[in-house]
């Protein structure tokens, strides 16, 4: 591993930040509900990576891993419930298109 933690951090953080950009882009531009959830997944992956990176750079890999594992478990629970909600929406509208979100206004 490189001896220069700052340099390493910048490169990894840049990678994570770009992934965040991709994830947010997906959230903003997609019309499909499942793709929105995939975008959420991408975002959470980027943040998990960021935790591991900062843990590595500050010498706390064990703590960072513990946090990352908890994060992954929470991710699963959120995605499971979210997919459940999306499937129920599909049952109502027979479509995964988000443009039907016009009922609640004001």
């Amino acid at each position: 591993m490189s001896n220069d933690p700052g340099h390493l951090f910048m490169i990894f953080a840049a990678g994570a930040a770009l992934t965040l950009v991709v994830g947010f882009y997906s959230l903003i531009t997609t019309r499909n509900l499942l793709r929105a959830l995939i975008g959420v997944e991408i975002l959470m992956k980027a943040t998990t990576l960021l935790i591991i990176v900062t843990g590595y750079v500050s010498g706390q890999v064990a703590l960072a891993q513990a946090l990352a594992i908890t994060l992954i478990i929470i991710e699963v629970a959120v995605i499971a419930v979210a997919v459940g909600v999306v499937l129920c929406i599909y049952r109502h509208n027979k479509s995964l298109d988000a443009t039907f979100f016009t009922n609640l206004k004001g």
Partner: protein
Amino acid sequence: MAIDIVLLGGLVLAAMATVMTARLLRAVIWLAVTSVFVALLMFRLNANIAGVFELSVCAGLIPAIFITSIGLTQRLTPEALAVRRRERLKRFWHLPLIVILAGIALSRLHVPLEAVMAPAPAAPAAADVRNVLWALRHTDLLGQIVVLLGGVFGVAVLIMEARHEQ
């Protein structure tokens, strides 16, 4: 160092592919590929157990959940698929552009990291994540159990009750 840059590049490219593919199923597969890249990066950072978790859960369980749900929803006809393919390229051509611009902006950024970082703790290097998880973060473990319970109840309420209705 070089291999890290390759892996990071692969990560960003896989994420872009996830967003830009036309078929939902392909998007989920690319999501799994993205997770594999993240896991590989974790292995590079000595976070072995987290990497294993990431592989098994995010590259295994979660794509399985997505694929099951896709299976329960409508398939696209070939004509609709062709239309969507053309549309996608028109809609999403600016994603690579944004990523490249963001990348350039980030590489110009200089963050004063060294001034801030506290010196590495004198903790024994053999601090294993299993010990940390059990000894230090047992509240998080409790939280994991409860959140999984919540997820299970949630899925039961949302999916199975609906099936009873039908």
